[in-house]
């Protein structure tokens, strides 16, 4: 099965603040990211704030120009396609953003927001087709069709996020990247949105890249989880698999699991994430790792494993011992 999305050695470096004279410092946001996403799959991306999750999603959506690596969407290399060449392909991958409050232009009505994708793509819709399309999209995300005429400030956060999802669905995409879609919503609304996402995936046969820092949510929703630290993938693991990287173990230990029968080995981590302006030569996690050895500081561990479970750690037990 060809992957819907395949990312190889993807990296992005932001130029630092510009001065009139002298060289800029460079900020390494994402580096050496490799993964494949198969049709129908939900891949979760987790990590602390600032670990490059959102940058990764924006790179894949080609909102930022990647500085290294390649992105293949359905076999086509889209890494450096021009805006015009990319335009028809954009119908097939879309993004839903974290902040529903600023993701819709406050001057647009909901109907205008939902038809903007067609307008940008140059799809001429008759008045009747336009109305039908708006109704279809609102029904898809279970919103009242009467909302079409209202402005975003009349809607609740959850309703706005539904509009954001409907707008991403407008052009009939195969892949949707979600950048913490539930992070700014109430817990009760979060649950509704998550159920909506699962239903949409079933009904429309979608593939999701789901960015979140909510580990319980990712565990519930995703088939595989990619753990990022300082712009790099430290582990990709299938749902429910025991974590091998000390960072993943620490993350999971920090998550709340209300089951007294599950005895967990608590890994404590201290200290701060190193800066992307000055990425360490060895393992990025070395400064905080409880198991750190000299090799970790000197040599950066590669991501090794089979198609299902891969880990970037010198000290992780070999994958073969699993199962």
């Amino acid at each position: 099965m060809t992957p819907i999305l395949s990312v190889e050695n993807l990296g992005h470096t932001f130029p630092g603040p510009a001065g009139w004279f002298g060289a800029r410092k460079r900020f390494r946001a994402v580096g050496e990211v490799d993964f494949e996403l198969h049709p129908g799959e939900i891949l979760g991306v987790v990590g602390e704030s600032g670990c490059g999750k959102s940058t990764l999603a924006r790179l894949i959506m080609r909102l930022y120009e990647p500085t290294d690596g390649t992105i293949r969407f359905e076999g086509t290399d889209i890494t450096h396609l021009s805006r015009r060449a990319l335009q028809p392909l954009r119908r097939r991958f879309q993004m839903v953003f974290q902040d529903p409050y600023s993701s819709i232009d406050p001057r647009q009505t909901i109907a205008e927001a939902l038809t903007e994708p067609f307008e940008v793509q140059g799809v001429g819709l008759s008045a009747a087709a336009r109305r039908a399309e708006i109704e279809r999209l609102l029904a898809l995300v279970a919103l009242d069709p009467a909302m079409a005429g209202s402005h975003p400030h009349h809607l609740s956060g959850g309703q706005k996020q539904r509009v954001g999802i409907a707008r991403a669905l407008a052009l009939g995409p195969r892949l949707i990247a979600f950048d913490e879609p539930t992070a700014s919503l109430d817990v009760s609304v979060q649950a509704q949105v998550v159920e909506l996402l699962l239903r949409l995936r079933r009904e429309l046969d979608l593939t999701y890249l789901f960015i979140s820092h909510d580990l319980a949510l990712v565990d519930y929703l995703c088939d595989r989880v990619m753990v990022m630290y300082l712009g790099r993938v430290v582990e990709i693991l299938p749902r429910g698999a025991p974590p091998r990287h000390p960072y993943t173990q620490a993350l999971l230990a920090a998550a709340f699991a209300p089951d007294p029968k599950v005895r967990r080995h608590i890994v404590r981590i201290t200290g701060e994430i190193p800066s992307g302006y000055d990425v360490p030569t060895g393992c990025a996690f070395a400064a905080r790792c409880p198991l750190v050895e000299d090799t970790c500081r000197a040599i950066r561990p590669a991501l090794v494993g089979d198609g299902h479970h891969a880990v970037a750690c010198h000290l992780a037990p070999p994958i073969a011992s699993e199962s």
Partner: protein
Amino acid sequence: MIARLVDRLMWRGPRPGIAPIVAGAALLCLVAAAFLSPWIAPWPYDQQMLAEADRAPSLAHWFGTDEFGRDVLSRVLFGARTSLSVALVSISVSCSLGMAIGAICGYVGGPVDRWVMAAIDMTWCFPEILLALLLVAILGPGSTSTVLAIAIAYLAQFTRLTRSQIRALKRETFVEASLCFGAGPAHILLRRLLPNAVAPVVVVAMLTTGDAILLEATLGFFGMGAQPPTPSWGGMMSSGSELLFEAPWVILWPGAAIAASVIAINLFGDGVLVALDVKKRRRTH
């Protein structure tokens, strides 16, 4: 925006109070007077009646006559045409040019922004009046060069304001959403950014129109504005200043007209500022 303004001025939403309404009405009268001056002025503005020079206000000449026996009321009415049209045209030119440059600089950023803004900022090194006098001295006196001079004198403030608006707006998520659909720079700028940036710029443009009237009058006073016999308020005050004690009405009426229009514009602009909720709007969405 117009609907919103009418809404707010009709006491729905934040109340701007009574002053802007009165000021707005006064402005309307002023503009109407300027438009209708050929029909409502009792005398032609350039008809000289030397026998009746320097007459105090009377029933025949409500505002009196000047040193050539011309009717001051008629000249103030015709002068409104010159002063208001010069101010309006120059601010429109300045505002649209400033918005275009500011929007492009703010959106594109980088070296283009840096160098263009550095050039625009140089106009800020001079007081407006000095800059305008300099430009008129180069271009030669007359209405067209006055318009250009005033437009360039206020260009920097419109450019700066638009640029800062666009720079803030382009980081909004809805811009990323549009980019995700494949929108190009024209769509982003014209459909997403500029409509959201226009309200504060319009308010500043209104308030600046008052300053432009003053600047036009100043240039006219120095003889650098509209040339005789075309009446302008500044020019009238200039000739009236020589007769300050013999015929004070010659300088008084155009001066009052300038003061009244500047005050009216400022009060009305303040009302619009409150009504459009320019400061609060960005945060409340």
